[in-house]
């Protein structure tokens, strides 16, 4: 059987008339009438994405300004010119994904999970290329401190991002949470790169990069929990007027 035949069968079945009582439509129209007034549209997606990247950069810079720019001072030109543009590109991608997740009917180029994968892999590649010190001094103690510091900066970045896009509607809240968490995680990595002077490959590859997947997953979990809680509230039936 050919696809065209299936198309024909589906088209015939889909063309069947659907009856809907005019009172139902009238009730809908009546329910929106009292609050019908002009609305202020959302700004263009690129403006919102710029805003998110700026939030990300501001959180990273504020965190590093408080803790000290020791990492940035220790870096050479090659390291600076590869790490920060890479972080900026990834933040732009995560921001754009977050914006699309908050506008219903937007076209998604990649899924949020894929974005997280791309972000993590890209950082691993850049760091593996740049950092060649293979010692593992204070691997856990120094690493956990960096992971916590990164996550501590990821939270305000993700929350500020969510606040910036509060007028949007996340039709897939888990996906939006993923994107927000990834964006926050990138802000956390940005702060660590500016601040942390520990350039041991294992430290950077494991603990700095881990901020992105941990933060992304936490964002998705928080969104899922909030949605689950909202979903457990009793369904409110709208009575006909």
């Amino acid at each position, binding site marked *: 059987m050919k696809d065209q035949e299936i198309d024909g069968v589906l088209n015939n079945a889909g063309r*069947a008339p659907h009856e809907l009582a005019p009172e139902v*439509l009238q009730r809908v129209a009546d329910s*929106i009438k009292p609050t019908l007034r002009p609305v202020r549209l959302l700004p263009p997606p690129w403006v919102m994405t710029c805003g998110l990247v700026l939030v990300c950069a501001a959180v990273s810079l504020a965190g590093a300004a408080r803790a000290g720019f020791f990492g940035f001072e220790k870096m050479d030109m090659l390291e600076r010119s590869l790490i920060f543009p890479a972080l900026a590109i990834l933040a732009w991608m995560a921001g754009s994904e977050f914006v699309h997740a908050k506008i219903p009917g937007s076209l998604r180029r990649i899924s949020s999970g894929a974005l997280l994968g791309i972000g993590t892999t890209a950082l691993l590649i850049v760091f593996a290329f740049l950092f060649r010190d293979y010692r593992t001094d204070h691997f856990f103690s120094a690493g956990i401190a960096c992971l916590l510091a990164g996550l501590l900066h990821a939270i305000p970045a993700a929350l500020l991002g969510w606040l910036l896009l509060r007028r949007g509607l996340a039709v897939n809240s888990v996906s939006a949470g993923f994107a927000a968490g990834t964006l926050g995680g990138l802000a956390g990595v940005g702060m660590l790169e500016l601040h942390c002077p520990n350039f041991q490959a294992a430290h950077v590859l494991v603990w700095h990069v881990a901020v992105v997947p941990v933060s992304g997953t936490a964002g998705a979990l928080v969104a899922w929990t909030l949605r689950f809680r909202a979903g457990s509230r009793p369904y409110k039936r709208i009575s006909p007027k």
Partner: protein
Amino acid sequence: MHPDSNLEKLMARYQEGDYAAATDLIERIGPQLHRFFLAQSQSRKDADDLLQETWLRIHKVRHTYRPSEPALPWFYAIARHVRVDHYRKSVWTAVGKRQLEAMTKELAADPRESHRSDALDVLLAPLSESEREAIEMMKVAGMSLEEVARATSSTVGSVKQKVHRAYKKLRVTVSAARFKTGQSEELS
């Protein structure tokens, strides 16, 4: 020009507060969305409620529609969101469970309420929920692959995969149905 450009114009006027455009949109989109809800809800009353709930949500977030974008996927994205919300509420709350039981009894008592005899529903019965949704959007709402991807917040590749899987299952179903019809004709 987009085939549904009128919808986009109406939507722009609705955002400006034009009541005539709003009612026009409700008349054009309402029956489509109602059918979308009816395909997976338990009763017509439930679908009516979902339609009203969806329009209230659409009304609340009408500022999120971007005039340069296709309107139909935007409507369906919100409808789908409301339906998922409703499904969760029905499943996870005791009230929802009681309502579902009551509806099931209601349906058993009054077979006219059932809409499962709808040809498309019967045809799509073997498909998974996401496959059925993609096929319904394409064949009933007349959306393109890209528009379905927009409405379901997924990528075009993922929608293509779902449609491909759905067609595979439909090929088996339709062939089996034809085989049965042929056999019964031969016997008679």
